[in-house]
């Protein structure tokens, strides 16, 4: 189809055509970036935790009695024993923090004792002998902790002991610290005194909380430290169907072991995860709504304007039909016109998309908009334009040649 007459006709309604192009450009720039934001959010909410999420429940308690009444290490052991004996419990542990939980313990680690800057900031899980099994972590290299490696938390807290002699780290942390070398047997330093040897590597273990970026989400380690009551929370592993009943039973059991305490919170880990990412899901939903609304408004704008043009040009269309133009030619005329305008809009929109992306990078520490979002946005808008113009164009094509002979 010859586009020269289309361009000539467009020149006569520059303003309206320009407005559509601007609208397309704005939509394109926004939609490309918003699509990227949506993927970013969804990716975040699907971060692997490394633990058996569907089988875990946790319980946090607080004591009422003055501290120092009994040995908190002994009391932790008592409680753990009582919880392990509940029906359906596969394994139970006491730990300082849980994935997606509300508190987090973080430590800087070094590769040499005299190193000035820490090599990585790491989430530190204090693990007893049941933690690997209870969490369901996947050990991909090395071994678990040996019985003589465990320290008591109360000793660690009072600074009475050297740092732990062994540590289990995640694959991400191993790569961060040692690159492609085998991390097993290597040493890290938690303070300036004694080394801690890497004895095992787990596939994943997410930190309790992490920023908008996923880079640091999986840098965690396990230290062989048995928690005391007051600093630990209990985590129990059971069949998914048994979780609700187990929470109720565990609360009752803890109360019967020592009545002087209250349960601060208890939940299924899968629900804890879901709550942690709720804001991301809401935001993703909101962003999707923005994209859909933009597409609808833009499409209706195109329909509206194209309808006006068709009505205005009824006589001209009639004349063309009378002079021998086929319906298909009229149809194609409007489709090509729309394609040209949308193309100009998309070209401008891509520049806009990159400008917005640059600004977002500064403001929100987001990575640059990946290139492939541009063709996706472009295709979406081309399709939208063609879809929107179809009805008005068909109406134009159905203008009978006899219209040419009538006055308005």
């Amino acid at each position, binding site marked *: 189809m010859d586009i020269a007459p289309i361009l000539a006709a467009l020149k006569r309604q520059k303003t309206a055509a320009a407005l559509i192009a601007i609208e397309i450009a704005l939509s394109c720039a926004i939609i490309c970036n918003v699509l990227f934001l949506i993927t970013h959010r969804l990716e975040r909410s699907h971060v692997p935790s490394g633990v058996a999420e569907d089988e875990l429940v946790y319980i946090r308690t607080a004591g009422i009695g003055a501290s120092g009444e009994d040995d908190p290490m002994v009391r932790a052991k008592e409680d753990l024993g009582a919880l392990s004996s509940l029906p359906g419990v596969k394994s139970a542990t006491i730990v300082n923090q849980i994935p997606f939980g509300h508190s987090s313990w973080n430590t*800087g680690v070094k590769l040499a004792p005299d190193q000035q800057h820490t090599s990585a900031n790491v989430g530190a899980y204090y693990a007893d002998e049941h933690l690997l099994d209870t969490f369901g972590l996947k050990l991909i290299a090395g071994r678990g902790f040996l019985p003589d490696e465990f320290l008591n938390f109360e000793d660690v807290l009072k600074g009475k002991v050297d740092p732990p002699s062994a540590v289990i780290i995640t694959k991400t942390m191993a790569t961060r610290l040692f690159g492609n070398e085998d991390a097993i047997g290597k040493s890290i330093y938690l303070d300036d005194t004694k080394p801690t040897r890497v004895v095992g590597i787990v596939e994943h273990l997410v930190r309790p909380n992490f920023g908008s970026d996923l880079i640091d989400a999986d840098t965690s380690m396990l230290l062989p430290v048995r928690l005391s009551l007051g600093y630990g929370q209990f985590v129990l592993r059971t069949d998914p169907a048994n979780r609700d009943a187990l929470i109720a039973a565990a609360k009752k059991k803890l109360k019967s072991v020592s009545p002087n305490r209250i349960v601060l919170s208890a939940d299924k880990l899968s629900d804890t995860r879901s709550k942690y990412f709720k804001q991301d899901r*809401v935001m993703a939903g909101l962003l999707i709504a923005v994209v859909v609304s933009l597409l609808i408004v*833009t499409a209706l704008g195109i329909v509206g304007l194209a309808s006006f043009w068709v009505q205005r040009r009824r006589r001209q269309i009639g004349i063309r039909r009378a002079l021998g133009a086929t319906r298909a030619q009229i149809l194609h005329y409007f489709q090509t016109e729309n394609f040209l305008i949308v193309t100009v809009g998309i070209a401008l929109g891509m520049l806009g998309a990159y400008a917005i992306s640059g600004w977002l990078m500064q*403001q929100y520490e987001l990575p640059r908009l990946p290139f492939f979002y541009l063709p996706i946005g472009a295709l979406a808008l081309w399709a939208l334009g063609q879809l929107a113009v179809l009805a008005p164009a068909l109406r134009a094509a159905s203008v009978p040649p006899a219209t040419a002979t009538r006055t308005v």
Partner: protein
Amino acid sequence: MFRYYAWLAARSLRKNPALTALMVLAIGLGIGASITTLTVLRVLSGDPIPAKSAQLFYPQVDPRSINDYHPGEAPAEQVTYPDGMNLLKAKRADRQALMTGGGAVVLPDSAAIDPFSVDARYTTADFFAMFDVPFQYGGGWKATDDDAHARDVVISKSLNQKVFSGGNSVGKTLRIQSTDFRVVGVLDNWRPTPHFYDLNSARYSDYEEIFLPLSTAMELEFGRNGSMDCWDNTADGDQVHSPNCSWLQFWVELDSPDKVKAYKAFLNNYSDEQRSQGRFPRPNNVRLPNVMQWLDDQKVVPSDVRLQVWLSFGFLAVCLVNTIGLMLAKFLRRNGEIAVRRAIGAPRREIFAQFLVEAGAVGVAGAVIGLLLALLGLWGVRQQAADYASLAHIDPTMLLMTLLLAVITALLSGLLPAWRACQVTPALQLKSD
């Protein structure tokens, strides 16, 4: 003339109901989204303590290790216990308070109420006067009570309601953990938003139910909430008293610029003095932000909320361009009518006014729809899990803002089409028809 134009506008708008609805709805959606997000932003970036925010300052010094030192970075966000006590005892400001958040279990006398845990604030005597905390009964404790580790407690209105049925409970006993405290004051409603004096906990929710002397809480080893940053080795493992662990918030009140300058100099002197005693290995790094500067520094407004504002204005821009396009096409279709009016003597000004009235009508209708949508949107925000959700309400300023936004939108959407309409040359149009 205006009434005639309004009548013409109504007629024209009724002629194309679908198109009119589209224009009104587009403007309405854009305005609704923008007002919703702006309201949330406004609520979150508000001044928590307008009467005093310019006189309250958050002194920062940097006692941290030379390890991990990066020149130019911000000083420590909280103070250590030794530094906090030194600055508190120096009394160089008009008022000063050292504090931390915590949690404790309250055991009501009544057997009908089970023990429950509450958020607590452990602080020093000036806290209440410095932050203009309103009291329903009684008042805060005195500085001497801090020194004496007094078993005094100030409770919130809601806790007073729950435990003492809301009466004047000053002098009554409240059992916290395993110690009896004497109630010295009951707060009136007090909810500075955001929770500016301690940004560690939820910033827009979870307000304290009990306030007690920091010295008492530390003696009784009550549980603390918040973040603690330790460096080097903490010697005997006593992190709370360690000079190498920062975990307390320190606020001062300074009521003149001269005093601010003097206080900053004092902080520098203090850093020098500490260095001469073998602490503060880093170069002096002293800051003294006021409330709003501190909130800004801590990026207290969630970035999602800002993003939503930008998005909604982007959306409004698209809706606006859309409406301009449609209105333009619509006005220009009435070339014939314009030409006739011009030919029989209407000046351009009148044509312009006529079409601006029509555009304005669309704008006003859009504003009404927008306001309704904003109310709906804010209702939606309040159903969310975010800690600020319950605060999302429209206020008179935002109503005014809606009106303003609507007028601007309507004018912007009407100006270009109306101007183009009044450019129609009568002779040419009449001839071509």
